[in-house]
């Protein structure tokens, strides 16, 4: 019984890793669940398994809440950077940096929320970042939320948002703040 579950998991892991490799781009978790008729819990377990197996390897698993992608590992970036002809600019403007910091650290945010924090109209910067593929919109009821894309995580060299520096501290602060304001 237990071996059976394990072998199913192993098989699922193989399949999902294969699909992710074949796709070569971000795949939505919802789609994977549909594809393999598995539960969300099973998928998370499988992804954890793949993530573990790819530790210290040349390939790594990058994840957001909704998507997952196989990418090269941090160790390989230098080598590829050297091979790649077109050097990508490392410069992001102030408006971009602030907006990205908000969606990364604060979590998915509406345009209004981002504008409240930044104190300026953000219509055009959000459009620019969306065109560059650094942020994505997600519809939640009638609200449109902006959130980091997998490509942004790739650019930042992190596998999940949890790897962002200071993220735990900030998350704690935000929760505390919200508790306070609720009073």
């Amino acid at each position: 019984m237990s071996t059976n579950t394990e072998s199913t998991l192993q098989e699922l892991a193989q399949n999902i890793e294969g699909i992710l490799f074949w796709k070569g781009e971000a795949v939505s978790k919802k789609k994977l669940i549909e594809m393999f008729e598995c539960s969300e819990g099973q998928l998370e377990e499988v992804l954890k398994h793949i993530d573990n197996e790819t530790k210290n390897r040349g390939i790594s698993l990058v994840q957001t809440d909704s998507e997952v992608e196989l990418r090269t590992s941090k160790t390989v970036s230098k080598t590829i950077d050297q091979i790649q002809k077109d050097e990508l600019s490392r410069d992001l403007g102030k408006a971009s940096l602030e907006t990205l910091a908000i969606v990364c650290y604060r979590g998915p945010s509406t345009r209004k929320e981002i504008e409240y924090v930044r104190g300026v109209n953000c219509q055009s910067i959000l459009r620019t970042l969306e065109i560059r593929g650094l942020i994505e919109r997600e519809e939640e009821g009638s609200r449109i939320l902006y959130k980091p894309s997998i490509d942004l995580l790739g650019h930042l060299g992190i596998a999940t948002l949890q790897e962002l520096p200071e993220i735990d501290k900030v998350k704690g602060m935000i929760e505390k703040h919200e508790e306070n304001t609720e009073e």
Partner: protein
Amino acid sequence: MPFEIKHSAYSGPLDLLLSLIEKRKLFVNDISLSQVTEDYLSHIKNLGGLTEGENHQLFPLHDVSDFIVIASTLILIKSRSLLPELSLSGEEEQSIEDLEDRLKEYQKYKSLSAHIEKLFRLHPLFSKQYIPPSKRKNQTSVFAPAKDISVANLQSGIWRVIESFPKKQVLPKVAVRKVKSLEEVIQDLTKRMTEALTYSFKQFTDGEISKLHGMNKKNDVEDSENTDEKEVVAKEQKVTVIISFLAMLELVKQGMIYANQHNDFGDILMESQQVGTPRY
């Protein structure tokens, strides 16, 4: 006071405000906010005073109105710090608290954005390279149309795209109202401050009288005379500050004129050159 930093160096009013506070190595609170009010106002005055040759540095008008809205709260804070006698409405008190909170919140994300800046493309994780079908080995080309591909669906698709084009920047109604209310705030404050000032002068005069009185009475006690003298100097300074502040308010009011003029046009599309034309 000329600003050594170009306007484009700020991503918005909170950025400007924060950098003014940090330049003085202060913490964000109502005291530091009142200390940088003049710097802030002289800065946004410059926003309207740029020559046309520099107009690539201009903010779109809706951004200018964002700057002005913050200015209104700063003026309240400054007024209160200069004249504690000035009573503020609940709403005004709230706007001061909100600004402090917002600035602290903004400060947090601004400092976090340094992590993003540092990490961005430092050691990126690469996707598998995409090889187009035409360049793949042993791959026959496929044509796989879908049921929903039709001329009608392409037509409705392109219209959805066109409808999603960002609308030209129209001065938002809310901002117009806020800009208007700023002028009201200034007029109102000028009036209230003049009244409070009269009261201060009265106090000042009273002080003078009591001082003279004291001098007559305790001619021989030097210490108390000194204390009184200090008080007078302090009050004189205060009055000077208030007078210069009122003069400054005038300047801001003049600065407002250009924003007001846009108001007259109502919801008209804003051209940066119009914004750039000096109005004083």
